[in-house]
């Protein structure tokens, strides 16, 4: 077994928050006595990530994703449990560790607003003590991959959100970290910029062999980049395994899409094959149990005969699977 780059055991984080009811009386009471409540943001999760993996970290808002990333990057002290990244305990924030990793948050900026990014890069070069030749190579590579030529010489405050994000990526990766934690890297970006950032992350991983843990609300990010996903909900790990198996484990059904030559007239009785999900312009989508999918498909082909123009059997869309996981209370599966 190879040495894990990220090794997390029973990691927990409990925040103590103050609670107050609305209204004057409650407000006045809160001057004297505050009611505090413990919130388990991360309630004991265990996983490991091998060198060079890109892992998607999924969960709804408040699931504990960002809290976990902050603990792994060293910003937060855990309440309990252990974690090692590249052999370091992150929250000790040793300079040796900080020089080997990066945390990029899509909604945060780390560049100086009033100066061009190229000048911020120079500052980072000195902070990370990057030798000149390596610095130049890194800048050239990032400039090429992210198409930064025009952007690095403008003051950061004059850049658009998408442009700024690209420059933030460059700044976060200029020291060629071995581990990158990406928190919502494409948030707020338009589709084409999202695609570019995705391509970049994949290419960066391929070229440098960096290990990447990424959270995103856009399933397209995850589908494009991650073979493996870790799903957490309410601070607990629900699933850790191949993205391809997620649907099989979490959604015990398949979607059969049948296209009919003569249109799917409402009179055509398809309910006996499965649950009709949608029906339009000659296309019918049916939801059927995973186990009976082959048999139902065969029956459909047989029964519809020449009326059938096309038929396909697929896993439900990944968004639907994820949504199902988060809305079903009993779902507690781990690979």
């Amino acid at each position, binding site marked *: 077994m190879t040495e894990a780059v990220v090794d997390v055991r029973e990691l927990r984080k409990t*925040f103590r928050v103050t609670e107050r009811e609305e209204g004057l009386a409650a407000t006045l009471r809160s001057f004297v006595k505050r009611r505090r409540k413990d919130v388990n943001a991360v309630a004991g999760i265990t996983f490991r990530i091998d060198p060079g993996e890109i892992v998607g970290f999924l969960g709804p808002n408040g699931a504990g994703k960002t809290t976990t990333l*902050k603990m792994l*990057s*060293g*910003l*937060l*002290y855990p309440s309990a449990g252990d974690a090692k990244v590249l052999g370091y305990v992150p*929250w000790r*924030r040793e*300079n*040796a560790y*900080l*020089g080997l990793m*990066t*945390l990029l*948050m899509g909604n*945060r*900026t*780390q560049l*100086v607003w*009033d*100066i061009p990014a190229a*000048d*911020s890069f*120079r*500052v*980072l*070069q*000195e*902070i*990370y003590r990057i030798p000149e030749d390596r610095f130049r190579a890194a800048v050239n590579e990032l400039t090429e991959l992210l198409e930064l030529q025009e952007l690095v010489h403008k*003051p950061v405050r004059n850049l658009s959100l998408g442009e700024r994000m690209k420059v933030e990526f460059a700044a976060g990766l200029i020291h060629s970290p071995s581990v990158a934690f990406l928190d919502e890297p494409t948030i707020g970006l338009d589709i084409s910029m999202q695609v570019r950032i995705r391509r970049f992350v994949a290419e960066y991983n391929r070229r440098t062999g960096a290990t990447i843990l990424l959270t995103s609300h856009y399933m397209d990010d995850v589908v494009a980049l991650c073979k493996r996903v870790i799903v957490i909900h309410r601070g607990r790990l629900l699933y850790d395994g191949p993205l391809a198996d997620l649907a099989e484990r979490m959604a015990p059904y398949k979607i059969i899409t049948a296209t009919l030559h003569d249109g799917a007239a409402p009179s055509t009785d398809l309910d006996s094959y499965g649950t009709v999900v949608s029906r339009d312009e000659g296309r019918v989508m049916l939801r059927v149990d995973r186990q009976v999918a082959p048999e139902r498909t065969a029956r459909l082909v047989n029964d519809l005969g020449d009326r059938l123009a096309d038929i396909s059997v697929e896993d439900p869309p990944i968004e639907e699977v994820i949504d199902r996981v988060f809305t079903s209370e009993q779902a507690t599966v781990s690979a």
Partner: protein
Amino acid sequence: MIRTYRALLVAQLQAASQYRVQVLLWMLFSVIRPVIFLAAWVAVANAQGGQIGTYDVRDFAAYYICLSLVSCLTASWNAYEFEYEVRFGRLSPKLLRPLHPIHYAVVENLVAKLTQIVPLSIVLVFISITFDARFRTTPAHVLLFVPSVMLAAALSFLSGWVLATTAFWTTRVHSVSTFWDRAAFIFAGQIAPLALLPGPLQAISLALPFGYVLGVPAEILRGGVSPSTALLLMAGQAIWLAIFFVAFQRVWRAGVRQYSGVGA
């Protein structure tokens, strides 16, 4: 570290160059208050036959000119910016780089002073001529002033950081630093030269850190104290600097832990 400082300095100078008007306004701000007090003391001294204690009108002029210069060279405003950085999470990226966040503030502070010192000197020469200031400065005073103002700047900066670090626990750093500024107003030698404060107030001001930031280096530069007294006062500066250095290290460590504890 020198290379890091140079890179930070270049970046910060560029950022500052975008705010030239602001730099000038801040510079004027550091002059206005001493000039108001100067005008008031000149009026009082004239009403009392031209002399108060050991100060005549020309001495007051020299004192407040020195005070303006010292006030510019020792200014520290980090408490305000730090609160913002903590509250909006801008400290986080700095904590994740292999460089202590204080270094960014040191450079920012130096750059502001570098950009203000030239225009300020011109204004001060003008005031000096207008009020016919009398300096009792000897070469020994100038030699002592240099380390003294450096100690004062370091003291002001570090005490400012200790105050700023309270932002880790409360989002109301303003009230803490306002209290600090009010105390400084009385005990630092702004309202009057320390030598003119009534006995008990003078004793208190020499026991507190404020005077060591402003009044002490200003008096040394004016030549208002003998070189031996100056050395004694500088020892006081060094003691307060050591106290704040230890305080800073402890408060910072606890503060970062607190920041990390509540949600960075």
